[in-house]
């Protein structure tokens, strides 16, 4: 199982500003003073050792691909990252090959559907797009987004075959070679997490999910849903203090709760996801350092590997 991240930012896409790029360049060149950088190899080695400074976590909103080697594509959410995914598909196959896309929707807030009007395969006859979700208004949300005056191409004009499939929580489904289960999560208008299993590998996609910590039975349900996963993609938008004080009921969670749930569920790898649009690269890198340290000082069993997702991250399980 391979998991590719095409969009990892929460709430709204963000872009690096010219000021941020300039700041990164100044920081790098300052650190380079006195260092012999007279060959490309030395420059590359220098850049590699400079941590997150030369990189960016990226700014596209939620879109994650679950790849188990089949001919169909499987995605979670249709945030702005799906545009980059579509570019990859077209670059791989060209526009003439008919493809099938299975897309699991966590929920229908704008940042999770906004990429669909720019999803080129929807404009190509012969493609099949199956959109799965647990919300009653699944189809309505997509049709409304395409309607005038919000977008110039009405949903009814899209040439691809597009079907909406309602899923129920608690029922296991066999879709595109994956066993899939959905779970209700706390978020404005509800959201759903998905657990994907294939040939002994397990990935859980759990974004836009607030953990109130007031009812241990709810925590236990999440521990069961995460149990023994190889990878949990987790909404770690805020610090714990923010998530349960000033941003209580905003529908998001924290790095600390992510670690605790994964430790209780014996998860192998936690990937921080849905980064706060107010966080810059340095702040996200800081949160990753803190989260790894928190995992280390609270560990009682096997280590939990912690990473922070970024647009372009590719994890092979």
């Amino acid at each position, binding site marked *: 199982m391979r998991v590719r991240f095409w969009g990892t930012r929460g709430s709204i896409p963000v872009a690096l500003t010219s000021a941020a790029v300039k700041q990164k360049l100044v920081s790098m060149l300052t650190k380079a003073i006195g260092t012999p950088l007279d060959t490309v190899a030395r420059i590359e080695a220098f850049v590699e050792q400079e941590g997150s400074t030369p990189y960016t976590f990226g700014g596209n909103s939620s879109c994650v691909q679950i790849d188990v080697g089949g001919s169909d594509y499987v995605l979670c959410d249709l945030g702005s990252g799906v545009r980059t995914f579509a570019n990859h598909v077209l670059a791989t196959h060209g526009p003439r090959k008919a493809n099938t896309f299975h897309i699991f929707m966590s929920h229908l807030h704008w940042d999770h559907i906004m990429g669909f009007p720019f999803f080129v395969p929807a404009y190509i006859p012969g493609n099949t797009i199956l959109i799965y979700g647990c919300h009653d208004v699944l189809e309505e949300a997509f049709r409304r987004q395409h309607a005038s005056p919000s977008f110039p191409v009405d949903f009814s004009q899209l040439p691809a075959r597009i079907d909406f499939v309602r899923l129920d929580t608690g029922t296991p489904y066999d879709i595109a070679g994956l066993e899939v289960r959905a779970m209700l999560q706390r978020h404005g208008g509800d959201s759903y997490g998905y657990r994907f299993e294939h040939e002994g590998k397990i990935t859980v996609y759990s974004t836009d999910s607030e*953990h109130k*910590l*007031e009812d*241990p039975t709810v*925590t236990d349900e999440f521990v069961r849903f995460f149990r023994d996963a190889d990878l949990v993609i987790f909404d770690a938008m805020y*610090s*714990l*203090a*923010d998530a*349960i*004080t000033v941003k209580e009921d905003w529908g998001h969670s*924290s*790095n*600390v*709760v992510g670690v*605790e749930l994964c430790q*209780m569920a014996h998860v192998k790898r936690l990937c921080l996801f849905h980064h706060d649009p107010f966080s810059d690269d340095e702040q996200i890198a800081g949160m990753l350092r*803190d*989260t790894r*340290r*928190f995992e280390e*000082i*609270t560990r009682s069993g096997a280590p939990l590997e912690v990473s922070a997702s970024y647009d372009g991250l590719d994890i092979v399980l």
Partner: protein
Amino acid sequence: MNLSPRRFADVVVVSPVGRIDQSSADTFKDVLAPHLARCTAGEDRLIVDLSGLEYISSAGLRVLMLAAKQSKAQGGTLLLAGLQPLVQEIFEISRFTMVFGIAPTLRDALAKVSASALSAFEKA
């Protein structure tokens, strides 16, 4: 869970020991409640001495956060004191150092909230 409450003049000090985690957070909340109820403008000041605490989970931090919220609403004074290095780190990583009033030691906390309580503490 025994909080071993001690009174120093107008201050009550409670001292949880060991671990406050998912399974013990509710009990901690229950045993803290009567002390918290008296943490008002005209009654006791409350210090939670964490020097014997080895670990606190998010559920335990939530109990402390609710306690701070309640004491503030009642016009009371609640202070945390004596965080051990590991617990201090948990507070810093979860950003709770920005939510609570925290003193390095119990003595510092008493000095901060009540001169008469500090005097009683030093005589004890």
